[in-house]
């Protein structure tokens, strides 16, 4: 069988050429932590949490973007790797609010998971912990730039899946941030609230506003559903709490399954016991409208039931 053979943590594996170390490790059921990687998005290699040791190399390459090579010997949890991962988590936490106690994302947050996995209780560094204003003047998404770890997943999701390119990197050095163009709020931007970005965000920096206050993540029983409203068939989760569907969460996009606001709203109307009143964007901002209007059914209704 053609391909590349390598050894990961003393286990041999053979994979097709061009496979990344991360994918090869998955073949062996070895999980390497990742914050910025998502196989549906283009490779980025930014968080560096996935670094591994490769015998004979001076640096620790990032497993998510490093192709395997014949005869490679990889260690995924060597002392140097663990030191690097712990340090990276400590560095991220130095500029993080650490609100896990009240954060909606708690229990479903990768940063929290990895801090737990590597036993990082506190950071030895003094960060600046900026107090950037919350961006929540729209009915759908709460953007908390203070919790953003700049993994760039939302940037790629918005651009590559949605084709909208609302979010982008701005500024340099420690001031770097992910923002809509000209640093306006999401509500003022060209955002169409498809929530592709929310679905991929590994932290609480981008959150579904409908979910706010509805419960802790571990109280929900998520059920995967497919949106029936168009041929794309996008993925969503019905979040059940004590048997009642409390919200419909974006399930994460895939190529050709772009997810849209309309699909999510329609599912919300169908499944939620207490659907919130929908709002749409008008010239003057967001306004509450009827469900028929929100779902664009007025025209259809007009044809079916002429007044």
């Amino acid at each position, binding site marked *: 069988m053609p391909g590349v053979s390598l050894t990961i943590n003393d286990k041999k594996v053979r994979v097709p050429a061009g496979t990344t170390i991360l994918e090869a490790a998955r073949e062996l059921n070895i999980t390497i932590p990742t914050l910025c990687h998502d196989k549906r998005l283009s490779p980025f290699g930014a968080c560096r949490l996935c670094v591994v040791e490769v015998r004979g190399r001076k640096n620790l390459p990032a497993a998510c973007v490093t192709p395997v090579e014949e005869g490679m010997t990889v260690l995924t949890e060597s002392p140097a790797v663990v030191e690097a991962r712990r340090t990276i988590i400590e560095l991220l936490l130095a500029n993080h609010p650490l609100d896990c106690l009240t954060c909606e994302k708690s229990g479903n947050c990768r940063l929290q998971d990895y801090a737990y996995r590597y036993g990082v209780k506190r950071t030895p560094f*003094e960060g600046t912990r900026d107090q950037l204003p919350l961006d929540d003047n729209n009915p759908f998404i709460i953007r908390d730039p203070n919790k953003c770890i700049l993994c760039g997943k939302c940037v790629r999701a918005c651009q590559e899946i949605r084709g909208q390119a609302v979010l982008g990197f701005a500024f340099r*050095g*420690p001031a770097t941030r992910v923002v809509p163009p000209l640093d306006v709020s999401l509500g003022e931007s060209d955002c169409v609230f498809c929530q592709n970005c929310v679905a991929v965000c590994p932290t609480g920096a981008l959150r579904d506003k409908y979910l706010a206050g509805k419960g802790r993540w571990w109280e929900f029983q998520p059920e995967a559903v497919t949106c029936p409203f168009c041929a794309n068939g996008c993925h969503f989760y019905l979040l059940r709490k004590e048997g009642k569907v409390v919200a419909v969460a974006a399930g994460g996009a895939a190529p050709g399954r772009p997810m849209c606001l309309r699909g999510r709203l329609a599912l919300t109307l169908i499944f939620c016991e207490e659907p919130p009143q929908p709002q749409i964007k008008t010239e003057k901002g967001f306004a509450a409208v009827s469900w028929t209007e929100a779902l664009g059914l007025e025209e259809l209704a007009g044809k079916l039931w002429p007044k």
Partner: protein
Amino acid sequence: MGRILVCAGTGCVASHSRQVTARLKAALHAHHLEERFQVDNTGCHGFCEQGPLVIIEPEGILYCRVREEDVEAIVTEHLEQGRLVERLLYQDPVTKEKIAAYNQIKFYRQQSRHVLKNCGHINPENIDAYLAVEGYQGLKKALALPREEVINIIKESGLRGRGGAGFPTGLKWEYTFKAPGDRKYVVCNADEGDPGAFMDRSVLEGDPHAVLEGMLIAAYAIGAREGYIYVRAEYPLAVQRLRIALAQARERGFCGERILGTDFSCELYIREGAGAFVCGEETALLASIQGERGMPRPRPPFPARQGLWGQPTNINNVETYANVPLILRRGAGWYASLGTEKSKGTKIFALTGKVKNTGLVEVPMGITLREIIFNIGGGILEDRGFKAVQIGGPSGGCLPAEHLDLPVDYDSLTAAGAMMGSGGLVVMDDSTCMVEVARFFLNFTQAESCGKCTPCREGIQQMLAILTRITRGQGREGDLEQLERLARVIKGTALCGLGQTAPNPVLSTLRYFRAEYEAHIRDHRCPAKSCRELLTYHIDPDKCNGCTRCRRRCPAGAISGEAREPHTIDLELCARCGTCLDLCRQKAIYVE
């Protein structure tokens, strides 16, 4: 006919060389000397500190710091009466001797100017001046050879990239040549973001055709039909000269369709960059040319396989390209005879800091630091003690006196904890605090980090915070270990060269000057007496005449004493502002 060359490089223009040129032309006219002397402008000589420079040829007499008012003397005394204008001659900082001939000045005598040969000697805005010194002969030669042969010549010459990492140029060309794809590109990296570096600027301003010729040879060798010169917008003169050179080269058939009547066609374009340091990193530079944010991406794929718009792209530095025509003209063997076993040819350095002669110097690889600093540079200013030389730009390292005899080549420098980088050489004397030096460079790199990867964006700012604390006397036990751990992780895990090398100034100063860090942390003392917040101010009672100047101006009210009696400073109250030190005429105040 005699020639009067007036430097029109950025440095000399800033010290008003344009006015000198105008005044010279007017004076020649007034004295009816236009038939005998011709005024010409040149690019930088690398001696900008002495500028504006005026050279009288054929004798090669150099006049320094020539002002408009001096023009009359040059014309009447030198040109008409054949007498040197003594006061405008260069004075050797060591022997104090006046030196008339350009090539007798130590600064130049000990250099080997091959790449810089034309800089300061030909008019960069006139292609005929370049053609007169065998310009475009290298391209002609290359076009008569098979592509593989041109690549072989570069491989045999041993040329390595001058942009920092020293990657073998011939090998890079070969990769790009062999990469599949029929649209290939050549790119010239003229971003030159290192603070204090100006070698690439000088070459572009002083000899732009050499760079174009080098790029065209590379384009032919790898099979590219298009190329970009990415030059920082802060170099307006370089951009202007490149535009002129490009237009002239097109007009004469050296660039564009069917170059020199062959089947080879290549167009070159200029792109101005917004001047972020990280845009010099090759993948960030390519992104920037494509109109995206200048942010590095992981390699592989290397640009040689997937560069501009995903096509095979050869990217080299300005100086690298400027070496290429020389190699083609004079042969790989000649080139390989310069330099050392593994580092061939010459390298241009920007010599700055506490040396007597500062400027651009081109030296053969393998020359020692001592020769550069003490012979060419004339030694340390005010004859103070040498402490260290910082080499390799903001992410290079600081080498102490014990390394003065280190041969300057890629591998020795890297082994000693520094690097060639683009060729910055900052000399430091014994008044320099090495912790502060490290802090200074990290302050630069942390601000210039593109912000993409965690270790670089977050890690360097933490290293900076620790260093800043130490220089303020708030260092703690464990700080050095923390610095070392951060340095290790950042070097090992950062995505691009910026992060991977940013800790070097800290690591090299920790390696050679650890005691200085410890003095700051443990004894709250700055041995170089440079960190203001760690100094204590004292008054020598034998020198103080009780003039009360310091007492009256001390913002902290820390000084007491009767008039005409020696004063004293209360260290508890003293705010360490240094006012008294500057004020005291008796020099009675000293710091410890």
